[in-house]
């Protein structure tokens, strides 16, 4: 029986791991065996304090992991199938099942993050891996001197478009509105980059090709009768994210999009389950806010477990 099981190995989960392990809770972190934290696919993080020259997402996660392991965090690579309520010695507990194992804990911290959303347009599935990509750091080097489009207008879309200019001959940012959502400094860089151009008020209608992508058709959202075809070699899609929370359906309350509802103490609707990071309904999904959530969730879980065990610093309280 663990004091706390943390599900997810991104910034929120690993920070929770650092705090939980340092508070001497018996802590296990279960991180997906096949799906890395989305931040590992970001080539450069410039807004995480302490790294004035920026740091790669993969390296940052490595560092978080080393730091958590140093304080005694136990770590397994496995994928959660279900969570169920159970009890031990008269108090509530939670049971977490994977394909091969069952783990029990007095409390859980869910920090499973998000994954990139699909556009659901014709050609997207067929050409995935043949010109359609969701990871610029993985696939950018395959597109030397190629013509690319990036779909989206947020931070990720613009940052990845900038990264892709290292390889591509041209990058067209296709955005459904007439201005970008991305942070100002990224916008300035994109506008100043000679390889980047824009298709405003445009949505992707379909992706066509033979064995690989050859063209995309764009529709004008202001004038739906107007469409144009662009010859391209690659399509990178960064139009938003969806939370990795399916396996918690019916266990904790979520909003309509599937983001887990939490309060300021990272409590979910289920007693003993806390959540933090990108999988929760919050305003700003960034590494730094995920870390904050993780620390709070670990502290809240510590309080909760202490009360269950009757060892709370504040004396006898009801959880």
């Amino acid at each position, binding site marked *: 029986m663990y004091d706390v099981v943390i599900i997810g190995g991104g910034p929120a989960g690993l920070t929770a791991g650092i705090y939980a392990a340092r508070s001497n809770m018996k802590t296990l972190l279960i991180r*997906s*065996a*096949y*799906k*890395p934290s989305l931040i*590992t*696919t970001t080539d450069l993080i410039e807004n995480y304090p302490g790294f004035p020259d920026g740091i790669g*997402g*993969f390296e940052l996660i490595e560092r978080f992991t080393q730091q958590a392991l140093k304080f005694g965090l136990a770590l397994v*690579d496995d*994928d959660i199938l279900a969570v169920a309520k159970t009890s031990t010695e008269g108090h509530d507990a939670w049971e977490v099942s994977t*394909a091969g194992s069952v783990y029990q804990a007095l409390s859980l911290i869910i920090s499973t993050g998000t994954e990139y959303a699909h556009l659901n347009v014709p050609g997207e599935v067929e050409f*995935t*891996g*043949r*010109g*359609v*990509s969701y*990871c610029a*750091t*993985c*696939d950018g*080097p*395959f*597109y030397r001197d190629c013509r690319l489009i990036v779909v989206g207008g947020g931070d990720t879309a613009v940052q990845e478009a900038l990264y892709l200019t290292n390889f591509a001959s041209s990058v067209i940012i296709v955005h459904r509105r007439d201005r970008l959502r991305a942070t100002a400094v990224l916008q300035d860089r994109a506008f100043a980059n000679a390889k980047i151009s824009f298709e405003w008020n445009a949505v992707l209608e379909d992706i066509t090709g033979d*064995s*690989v992508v050859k063209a995309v058709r764009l529709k004008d959202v202001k004038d739906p009768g107007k469409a144009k075809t662009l010859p391209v070699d*690659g399509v990178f899609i960064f139009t938003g994210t969806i939370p990795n929370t399916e396996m918690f359906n019916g266990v904790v309350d979520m909003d309509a999009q599937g983001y887990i509802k939490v309060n300021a103490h990272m409590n979910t609707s289920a007693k003993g389950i806390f959540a933090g990071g990108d999988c929760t309904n919050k305003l700003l999904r960034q590494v730094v806010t995920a870390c904050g959530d993780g620390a709070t969730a670990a502290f809240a879980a510590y309080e909760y477990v202490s009360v269950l065990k009757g060892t709370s610093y504040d004396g006898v309280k009801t959880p």
Partner: protein
Amino acid sequence: MPEEKFVDNPDTAITLTDQNINEAVAKYPFIVVDCWAEWCGPCKMLGPILENLAKKHVGQIVFGKLDVDKNPDTAKKYGVRSIPNLLVFKNGEKVGDIVGALPEAKLLERINALKG
């Protein structure tokens, strides 16, 4: 670099290059080639999963790994545009590819479907 000697039933993913991949594809009736690169985070997660499968399915499925950064010709020849990408060869012919990382059980399902 010394020529890799291909054993009959490897229990680990064998290292392939532009030079020796054809020999491996000709030798093994069913081989799954993991195209990866140092710069690709998801690829690093797939590595241990494939090692696991290589151990569990000795004599049935052979696994190879090919660094696309050092072996661009193979990547080009098979139109690899996204990694991780598993190229699947049966009796010397490419019968399919599996793009993106998947959990071990799902991956095995996809591989077996191509194995027939």
